[in-house]
């Protein structure tokens, strides 16, 4: 088994080959290598335990030849005590190394998991746009599991198998070289079996995995669309296509598993034939006086031990390859480019006396930007776009030459059809994405010079899709400001008109939300998101379709709350209900990534452009 790529055998593990074996193993070793002292101890224990079990078997020879056959029972007792001691030590050592390996592997895996999670938090949104969350999730589950499995089992098992194998061969040779030659012939036979069955197994396993993927994919798609199937009476068709895939998988799997499961009986019984030949030849040798009964007994024990390491190693190689492939996917994430943050200007609380600002830790309601040289500029909420060009991909421009400004305290609204670029603009203010050209300034400072953390802390965002976390309702609102008191949380909920429905929940504010708040309606979830933004009390607010799932009657009810939330703040509003944006200071109409109209409601109506058309769409109704 010199070639690590020649993995095969039963167990049904993946045959995914890692792309870059060497460097991935190196990185993995760097993790495990932190426990050098423990690893040395493991190696020591492995040697002792393997040597112990080999020596124990060898002792059979003197026990039978020198004590049992001559009837020296005093000596026999001594020998048995020695054997007991050796076996005991061997068992103790094998427990010790296994226990230490558990410790090492669990610590390593926990570290790996933490590093992976921490890394995830630092990645830019672009990464999440281009990687499916199911795929990322499987790195935390499947991939980490295979790595854990490998460190836990394969590592020690590989070493101990190799040690045992070498030790057994050596002892066999020492006991009788003629018999050893026979065993070596069988060794080659076994390796050939491993190679042929393994090769076939690999090919058919690939076919099986393909067929399994097809069945599972089909089941997933059909079950997800089950209601549509019912509505369209499509059950019969759905069954027919399923039958084809199911049968195909059955045939492929039968083939693959036949190969995989033939390995064990084939190897085991080859070793039995070796056992039979050894008995026969050993007997003949014994008659010829070239061997003895005790030696034969010990040798036969070794023959039984001899095939185990080969089967084990061939099994472990698969586990290891799968684990390295998993580790590779984990390191792929860890090596992804993190969100860049070269900004040095930070957000600080200030006390304002006249025009002079002094930094403070107390909540004063005033904030300032602190430049790297220590100068303070008051946060006012003045946001400007100057000839901004942006595309999610370099070659596809989404925003084309956008210039706009929002003066402190102004409400700016974006209107336009889906895909016009409304959400994109707000994603640029908080630097979820970086622009290709032009500049965005915040109180006169280029946003690229502001530390991202500070920038985002100054902006409250209510997104179109509300995400809630497992925890209580109060916890979810408090996500906006972690040290908010219960009173502040309730006040925020009242502001968002969420207080009433929260009080109707089984445990009020302490009701546990599960599964992204699945038991709340879309509208209720949005009210919670608004409350969350309210409690965070940010100087600048971005509302991205924040009320889209709230019906028009309820929206009227929360209007007052929303108005007080928006008071004295710079607010960016995206809405496709024009009633939400009518009172904005400036309304920007976007189309295909460009601003085609701007002005307040009355101006735009007078202009009789696109906004007017939209508005007259309603007028027709009357």
């Amino acid at each position, binding site marked *: 088994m010199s070639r690590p790529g020649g993995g095969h055998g039963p167990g049904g593990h993946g045959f995914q080959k890692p792309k870059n074996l060497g460097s991935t193993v190196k990185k993995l070793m760097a993790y495990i290598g932190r426990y050098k002292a423990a690893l040395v101890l493991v190696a020591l224990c492995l040697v002792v335990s393997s040597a112990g079990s080999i020596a124990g078997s060898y002792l059979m020879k003197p026990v039978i030849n020198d004590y049992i056959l001559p009837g020296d029972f005093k000596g026999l007792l001594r020998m048995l005590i020695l054997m007991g001691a050796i076996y005991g030590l061997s068992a103790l050592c094998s427990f010790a190394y296994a226990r230490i390996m558990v410790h090492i592997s669990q610590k390593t895996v926990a570290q790996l998991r933490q590093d992976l999670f921490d890394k995830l938090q630092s990645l830019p949104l672009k990464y999440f746009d281009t990687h499916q969350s199911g795929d990322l999730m499987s790195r935390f589950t499947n991939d980490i599991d295979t790595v854990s499995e490998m460190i836990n089992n394969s590592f020690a098992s590989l070493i101990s198998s190799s040690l045992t194998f070498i030790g057994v061969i050596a002892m066999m040779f020492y006991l009788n070289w003629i018999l050893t030659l026979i065993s070596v012939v069988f060794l080659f036979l076994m390796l050939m079996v491993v190679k042929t069955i393994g090769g076939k197994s690999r090919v058919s396993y690939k076919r099986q995995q393909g067929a399994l993927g097809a069945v599972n994919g089909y089941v997933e798609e059909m079950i997800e669309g089950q209601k549509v199937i019912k509505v369209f009476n499509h059950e019969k068709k759905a069954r027919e296509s399923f039958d084809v895939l199911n049968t195909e998988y059955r045939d492929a799997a039968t083939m693959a598993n036949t190969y995989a499961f033939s390995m064990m009986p084939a190897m085991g019984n080859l070793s039995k034939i070796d056992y039979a030949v050894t008995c026969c030849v050993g007997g003949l040798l014994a008659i010829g006086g070239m061997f003895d009964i005790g030696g034969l007994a010990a040798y036969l024990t070794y023959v039984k031990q001899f095939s185990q390491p080969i089967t084990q190693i061939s099994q472990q190689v698969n586990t290891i390859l799968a684990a390295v492939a998993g580790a590779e996917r984990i390191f792929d994430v860890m090596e992804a480019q993190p969100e860049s943050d070269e900004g040095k200007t930070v957000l600080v609380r200030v006390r304002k006396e006249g025009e002079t600002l002094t930094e403070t830790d107390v909540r004063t309601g005033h904030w300032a930007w602190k430049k790297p040289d220590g100068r303070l500029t008051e946060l006012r909420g003045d946001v400007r776009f100057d000839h901004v060009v942006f595309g999610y991909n370099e070659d596809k421009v989404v925003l084309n030459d956008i210039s706009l400004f929002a003066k402190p305290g102004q409400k700016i609204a974006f209107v336009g*059809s889906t895909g016009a670029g409304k959400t994109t603009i707000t994603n640029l203010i908080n630097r979820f994405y970086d622009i290709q050209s032009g500049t965005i300034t915040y109180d006169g400072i280029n946003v690229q010079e502001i530390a991202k953390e500070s920038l985002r802390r100054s902006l409250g965002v209510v997104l179109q899709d509300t995400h809630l976390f497992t925890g209580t309702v109060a916890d979810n609102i408090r996500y906006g400001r972690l040290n908010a008191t219960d009173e502040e949380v309730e006040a925020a909920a009242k502001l968002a008109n969420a207080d009433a429905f929260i009080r109707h929940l089984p445990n009020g504010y302490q009701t546990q939300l599960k599964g992204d708040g699945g038991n709340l309606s879309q509208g209720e979830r949005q009210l919670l998101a608004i409350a969350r933004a309210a409690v965070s009390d940010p100087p600048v607010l971005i509302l991205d379709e924040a009320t889209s799932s709230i019906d028009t009657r309820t929206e009227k009810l929360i209007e007052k709350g929303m108005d007080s939330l928006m008071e004295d703040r710079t607010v960016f509003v995206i809405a496709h209900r024009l009633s939400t944006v009518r009172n904005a200071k400036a309304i920007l109409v976007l189309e295909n990534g460009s601003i085609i109209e701007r002005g307040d409601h009355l101006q735009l109506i007078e202009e009789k452009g696109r906004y007017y058309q939209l508005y007259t769409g309603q007028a027709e109704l009357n």
Partner: protein
Amino acid sequence: MLKKLAPYTKGYRKWILLGVLCSVGEAVFELLLPLVMADIVDVGIANGDRAYILSKGAEMIAMSLVALFMGVCAAGLASKAGMGFGANLRKAEYDHVQEFSFSNIEKFSTASLITRLTNDVNATQMTLMMGMRIIVRAPVMMITALVLAITISLRLSRVFLVAIPLLLVAVGFVIKKVGPMFTTLQERTDDVNLVVQEDLSAIRVVKSYVRENREKEKFSQRNSRLKAASEKAFGFVVLNMPLMMLVIFGTIIAVMWIGGHQVYAGIMGSGELISFFTYVTEILISLLMVSMVMMMLTRSIACGRRIVEVLDEKPEITDEQANPALVVADGSVTFDHVYFKYNKKTDAWNLEDINLSIRSGMTVGVIGGTGSAKTTLVSLIPRLYEATEGAVYVGGHNVKEYTMEHLRDACAMVLQKNTLFSGTIRENLRWGNEHATDEEIAAACRAACADEFIDKMPEGYDTHIEQGGTNVSGGQKPRLCIARAILRNPKVLILDDSTSAVDTATDARIRRAFAEDLKDTTKIIIAQRIASVCEADLIVVMDDGRIAGAGTHEELMKTNEIYRDVYQSQLEGVSIDG
């Protein structure tokens, strides 16, 4: 549970039987070897009889060859039986799910049904396959070895009276202790995965509120707890192996001591002593295998139970009372004192005393706030749910009198959360009518205003749609779904809030097309926008599961406060999109 799963081995029973026989044969032949070996030592070597040794040797080789052959056969047969059983089970479960009504599907949830059809079936078929080898082999090995050991020496076999209970107690102790540890481990793993899952979907919220460090902290706490649990559980599991080693080694030493005396006294041959050692190892290792299989079984029993749950689920809605010859004659719909609730155990009704009469060919608008049960109301028409009390009539007959196939052929519904399937646009549209000609497809797309964007696509109707329709926009998807429904040429067409994501102008054009092309079809339209329904022949205003008012726009403006409210709130703004 086994009784419930057993029928699905149909067609593979002879393979199972043959496979088990092969496994037994393999085990027996393997174990006979040491007995022959003892003869070689005690007779052949002792008497210096070369011919005897050679003939016995040939016997042993023949036996191992038979064992080899049987072993490989057993592997093949086990695969055939296991995978065949899996395929049967998967098919039965899948076919059964096809019979499910909406409430059955909701009871299990989509994700759970998928797991039960994929992972659970795979685990169960694996168990049968592995089980055929290990579960059969281990006890056979153990019993055969025990019998052979006893034939060699009854006195010496008494060591097993100590060794077997000792090993059983040791292994039992480990398994018993480890069970709850693994439960804890699973819970904590779920905890960790939950954080990852939530953060992956809510990454924008995390970043907006700059909560990265808090999330890291949260994860770190759960991760440490997981680490502690897994170290504890696995740390305990590793006791298994050394404990077994101690028992085996102890037994071997005891056998040496007692057997040594017997050999010296001439009661027993030295060859027999050597073969006895082999049986000691075989017996104790088989015992360990059995205990490991037990651990594996507990896991697949859980999977099997989850499958049986699906198989046992009774489809809520059946064709029992249906007349197979009856077809829907026209598109009239009547609700007669209809009451409905999703959960039979709760007191509150989701729909309460609904009375409604719709003439064939009418256009009906349904309007009302979130949670007012608009969708529930229309779902009763194609019998997606069954009225708890009262009756729903379509074409003059109670919906129960039609087969579901006939009823749903006549009542096409465009669901709120609609699904497109992977395949071309044309294939998706043909769901509506398998035999639709290209002209019919184009006409339906024109009526649904879907032709304008399909024609712009480079491959037109042959454009490939990804699973779940992820590559068409939010405004395009509902239009394709509407076209698909129109192709059914239904008597009743139901749109559940299908045009909210479509801009007002297109919405108006679709309504105009409906009025012209689908004159004889009853059109029931749920909408958010007053504009979508105000021209309807009848507008139904829903409020908290009841009909709060029904009539034309003018009538409702006069009489219905809720309707006026909704109208007022929308008057001030216009909805746009597209």
